[in-house]
């Protein structure tokens, strides 16, 4: 294999048969190129899906009350369920080990005014833990803290868009803004990477809003994160327990799906994962089909090349070449060409990805890239396939009697 003479023969033959070399090389290089692009696209779609959902903590659970649709425990159906502060306390006590962060939520909308600018926005009144549950990024100032909560202070964390709309060029931090006629001090600004609309929201302490709305203890929902060490099964088991206990507490029939709704991120995430899983299987399946097409292409060209070289093989044999030398010559040449052009295809595809990949950042398609080991494996498979595809005709050619090969006049 490392005989200098045979490599000289090979380079000589490559140099003097440029079209043949190009045809073989092109089919391999092109196959690898398409394969890399395909796998990268699938990967980009997966990245896109994941980034869509990475916005919130992936271990979050949202609880919202609804209306019962079954009569149960002496209550009529169509009863509206109301969550209260003590539901939060109850969950905290009952699931000490299961939850990490918990926050009540009130959903209100308000008209806001600063100087002459006005606008209508939705407000979420929450506990300080809500920042972690929603992964809210505060770029200026701070989020709501326990002090705000204890003293029910009229403070607000506003979205970037709200700040732009109301304050224009001014720095909103520390300024007072009017929500439905009440003055709130802006303590922070948040951004949301995934969603411009979320930046049109406002956060305020939940106690403040409960006071404003008649000193109530009612809440519109509960958000929590479960113990982050839980795997999917444990997380689902926890949310089932949570659901059962809350249903019992609010006297909702166990089979009633609309009395209380628990939306578990783990569930949604597993659905998405299985979707992108299917996507990657499709990618692999199509990739295999491309590989097969490439192999058939190489096989074809190998048969053609050996057909073309039959006479040369006859001459070489008449001059004393043994069959083994012929096979070695033909196969080493084809392996050299397929490997080289495979890596050229690989190089081009990864090069294009390196340039284009970072530019691709639409929600559905993020940073297309491909695992190098997969592509390397594919290249090796293609080269081996080329070898096998060439082996049979090469052996056949090497065993043709030279007289037959020489008679093969063209």
């Amino acid at each position, binding site marked *: 294999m490392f005989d*200098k*003479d045979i490599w*000289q*023969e090979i380079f*000589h*033959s490559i140099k*003097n*048969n440029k079209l043949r070399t190009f045809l073989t090389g092109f089919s391999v290089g092109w196959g690898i190129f398409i394969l890399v692009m395909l796998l990268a696209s699938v990967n980009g779609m997966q990245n896109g899906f994941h980034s869509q959902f990475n916005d919130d903590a992936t271990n979050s659970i949202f609880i919202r009350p609804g209306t019962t649709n079954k009569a149960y425990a002496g209550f009529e159906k169509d009863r509206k369920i109301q969550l209260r502060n003590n539901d939060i306390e109850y969950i905290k006590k009952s699931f000490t080990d299961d939850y990490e962060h918990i926050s009540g939520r009130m959903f209100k909308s308000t008209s806001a005014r600063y100087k002459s600018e006005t606008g209508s926005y939705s407000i979420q009144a929450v506990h300080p833990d809500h920042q972690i549950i929603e992964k809210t990024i505060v770029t200026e100032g701070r989020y709501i803290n326990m002090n705000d909560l204890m003293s029910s202070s009229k403070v607000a964390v506003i979205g970037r868009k709200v700040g732009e709309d109301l304050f224009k060029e001014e720095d909103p931090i520390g300024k007072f803004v009017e929500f439905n006629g009440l003055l709130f001090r802006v303590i922070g600004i948040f951004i949301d990477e995934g969603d411009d609309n979320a930046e049109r929201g406002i956060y305020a302490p939940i106690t403040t809003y409960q006071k404003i709305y008649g000193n109530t203890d009612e809440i519109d929902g509960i958000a929590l994160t479960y113990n982050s060490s839980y795997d999917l099964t444990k997380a689902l088991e926890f949310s089932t327990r949570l659901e059962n206990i809350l249903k019992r507490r609010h006297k909702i029939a166990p089979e009633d799906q609309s009395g209380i709704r628990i939306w578990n991120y783990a569930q949604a995430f597993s659905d998405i994962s299985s979707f992108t899983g299917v996507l990657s299987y499709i990618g692999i399946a199509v990739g295999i089909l491309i590989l097969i097409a490439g192999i058939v292409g190489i096989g074809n060209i190998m048969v053609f090349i050996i057909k073309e070289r039959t*006479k*040369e093989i*006859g*001459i*070489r*044999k*008449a*001059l*004393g*070449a*043994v*069959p*083994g*030398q012929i096979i070695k010559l033909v196969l080493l040449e084809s392996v050299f060409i397929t490997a080289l052009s495979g890596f050229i295809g690989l190089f081009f595809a990864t090069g294009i990805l390196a340039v284009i990949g970072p530019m691709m950042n639409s929600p559905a398609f993020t940073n297309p890239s491909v695992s190098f080991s997969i592509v390397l494996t594919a290249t090796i498979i293609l080269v081996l396939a080329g070898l096998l595809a060439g082996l049979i005709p090469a052996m056949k050619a*090497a*065993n043709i*009697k*030279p*007289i037959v090969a*020489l008679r093969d*006049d063209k």
Partner: protein
Amino acid sequence: MIKIENLHKSYKMGSNSLHVLKGINFSVEEGELVAIMGSSGSGKSTLLNILGMLDNLDEGSYTLDGVPIKDLNETKAANYRNKFLGFVFQSFNLINYKSAMENVALPLYYQKVGRKERQEKALKYLDQVGLKEWATHLPSELSGGQKQRVAIARAMAAEPKVLLADEPTGALDSKTSYEVMDLIQKINDQGNTILVVTHEPDIADMCKRIVHLKDGVIVEDKKIKQVRAAEHV
């Protein structure tokens, strides 16, 4: 040098069998220049192919330089060809992407001769056929006569025991044919054993012995007075 006894060979053509050689007895001494003549289909090329181990015999025995040639597999045949025989073909059979010198050096490559020595030897034999200046040219840049002289240089480069020429002048005009025959005679003068298959009487007359084949048997085998090709050039 060559000894053949009761040689038979037939080819299968579909369901029919074509009996080409029907019991040939024939021997060649060292230094002979033998013309094998016969019309098309007489079996002369088949005989040469068997002598050249390019084809197998069906029946009979063949001894070359004291070595019985039998039970040949491809590897063994290739080694014998490389060691004992040089070929010159009607259609030259040069490798078209190799230069004249590389073509001449090829049998030496299969004899595992080192690269430098190969080149030296190839140049030496090209010089002998008068084509040293054409060493770097491709076959497509050479005339028919030049191609055949390169082919003869290639056959001689391996320093074979026997040179086998199958219609060496068949694709050449008469002037070039005589030049090639002149070359073959000179090689023979150096003591090399040469067999030439031809159907042209003037070419046969330039050999020292004519073996006449007809329908697969030798009908005539006579020594003749050699006509020197140089007189006609």
